[in-house]
């Protein structure tokens, strides 16, 4: 077997594949952040909390009502998305027109409340969620054995990400959304219900986070703080990609997942911080982010 830097190629490819799985989560989460930011100018600090809520919705749905994985994949994002809409109507709506920093602070407070409640109700230790029976097998890719479920995660994330991109960039609904980003009062004058659009967008972005939560439930332990450090990584991803860009957030999410996987092979100690180091480098070389315009 050939080697690079004294590491077998198969190991590198294996880690890159696992990095791609992580990257799928980064892409889904940063996409949701980018959609919300694009229309509302709000940096949603509660994104990690909604991600955790998605996983808990799936877990509790299974434990209390026997809702299986496939139904949870649809129902959990829906439920969390509705909760998101409620939060937007109750709280965020009052901050429009103010400094966007207030949105960041408010959602930070929301994250504390949500994660604190989950922590007190379900404890600090994580709970496991069973892998759905249809995806229990493993695929032999030649260079590694990939659990089918992880392959499924990559496929679903890619489909959802590019589906969202397609809706926003190529459909009439997306055109309306983008118009609201450009000039909300004018769009309102044309008879479009902009507040409704904004609420639905926040719900949609939050639902994407919840979907990521459901997808991750069978891989990691479901716990209250599963999203609290992840959201910081995703923030860094978004800074690297450039905040306004939908495609940028998807691509940089995937790339950074892979970069992280690669670091695990070369220099494992740095794998936790590589995303932040890359962020610092990007800021020094290209302050607007890789895909940003401003």
């Amino acid at each position, binding site marked *: 077997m050939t080697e690079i830097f004294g590491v077998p190629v198969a190991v590198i490819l294996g880690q890159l594949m696992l990095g791609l799985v992580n990257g799928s989560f980064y892409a889904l989460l940063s996409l949701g952040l980018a959609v919300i930011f694009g229309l509302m100018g709000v940096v949603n600090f509660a994104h990690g909390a909604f991600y955790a809520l998605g996983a808990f919705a799936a877990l509790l749905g299974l434990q209390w009502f026997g809702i299986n994985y496939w139904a949870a994949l649809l129902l959990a994002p829906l439920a969390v998305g509705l909760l998101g809409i409620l939060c937007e109507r109750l709280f965020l709506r009052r901050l429009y027109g103010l400094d966007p920093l207030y949105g960041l602070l*408010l959602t930070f407070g929301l994250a504390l409340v949500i994660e604190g409640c989950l922590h007190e109700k379900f404890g600090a230790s994580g709970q496991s969620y069973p892998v759905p029976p249809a995806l229990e097998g493993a695929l032999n890719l030649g260079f590694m054995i990939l659990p089918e479920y992880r392959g499924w995660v990559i496929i679903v994330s890619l489909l959802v990400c590019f589906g969202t991109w397609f809706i926003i960039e190529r459909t009439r609904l997306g055109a309306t959304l983008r118009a609201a980003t450009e000039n909300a009062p004018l769009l309102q004058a044309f008879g479009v219900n902009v507040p409704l659009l904004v609420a639905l967008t926040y719900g949609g972005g939050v639902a994407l986070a919840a979907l990521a939560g459901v997808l991750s439930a069978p891989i990691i332990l479901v716990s209250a703080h599963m999203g609290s450090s992840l959201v910081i990584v995703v923030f860094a991803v978004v800074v690297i990609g450039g905040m306004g860009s939908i495609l940028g957030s998807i691509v940089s999410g995937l790339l950074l997942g892979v970069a992280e996987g690669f670091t695990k092979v070369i220099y494992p100690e740095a794998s936790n911080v590589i995303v932040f180091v890359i962020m610092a480098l990007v800021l020094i070389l290209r302050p607007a982010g890789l895909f940003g315009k401003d």
Partner: protein
Amino acid sequence: MRAAPAFYCLAVLFALCAPFLGVYPVFMMKLLCFAMFACAYNLLLGFSGMLSFGHAAFFGSAAYATAWLVAAHGWSTVPAILCGVLVSGFLGLIIGAIAIRRHGIYFAMITLALAQLVYFVCLEAPFTGGENGLQGVPRGTLLGILPLRSDITMYYFVLAAFLAVFIFIRRVIHSPFGQVLKAIRDNEPRALSLGYEIERYKLLAFVLSASLAGLAGSLKALVLGFVTLSDVLQANSGEVILMTLVGGTGTFVGPVVGAAIVVTLQEYLSDIVGGWVTVIIGAVFVICVLVFRRGIVGELAALRRLSGGSSPDRA
């Protein structure tokens, strides 16, 4: 302006007598450390308009540096504190230089991410004790003559340091440098067009704020005798924002009031409600942002202005 000196005299008098009024000195010291931390933070958020989400990195790194020098290398107290301040100031120079390349929410997100990097370094570095942190940090003696073991002596040392920092920040804000900072906060393009080198001013403000946050961290490490990862954790950055916000950003007394409220809440509520204290802190955050964005002192000052009086505390 007449109310201000009387208010300050009363506050200082209370602080001087506090140990004899039955207030637990360690609690007061913790409160003063966080009040200093919040004042340092306010220098950045309130007077320079930069919302950093990573100030725990400076607080924590200085705390680790001081504790490590004292506990593992037997340094005496004052040099160890100064070294801690240097470490956080240097860290502030690096993080600040990167973060001030962007504004507003980007600035917040960048400081958050870089502080997370510092957190991971503290988690994995060989001298920080990992998950355990550093325990049993001795307080030492002040300049080789005054032992700080007694809580009362330590209390007056911390109080003196706090008052010095408070006066220093007032001095900085009222200096020409502080005026330029406020000009940048209120209208950056205009300050730029007037020929000020904005980046240098912002960076200096950032380094100052980081160093003073570090001083607070170093003192806290000595007061409590331990440093843990929670000192560098993102939650700590959030708390200092909350203290400043609750008390009133851009006021001198606000952060002190905010720190007093938050520390007291944490100290006494955690006995009653346990872990729900995080939820309460989060709820206070939400209410603060929604209902009184000027903070307690800021709202009081606004009330005074409305009723025709002059405000004691608006810079």
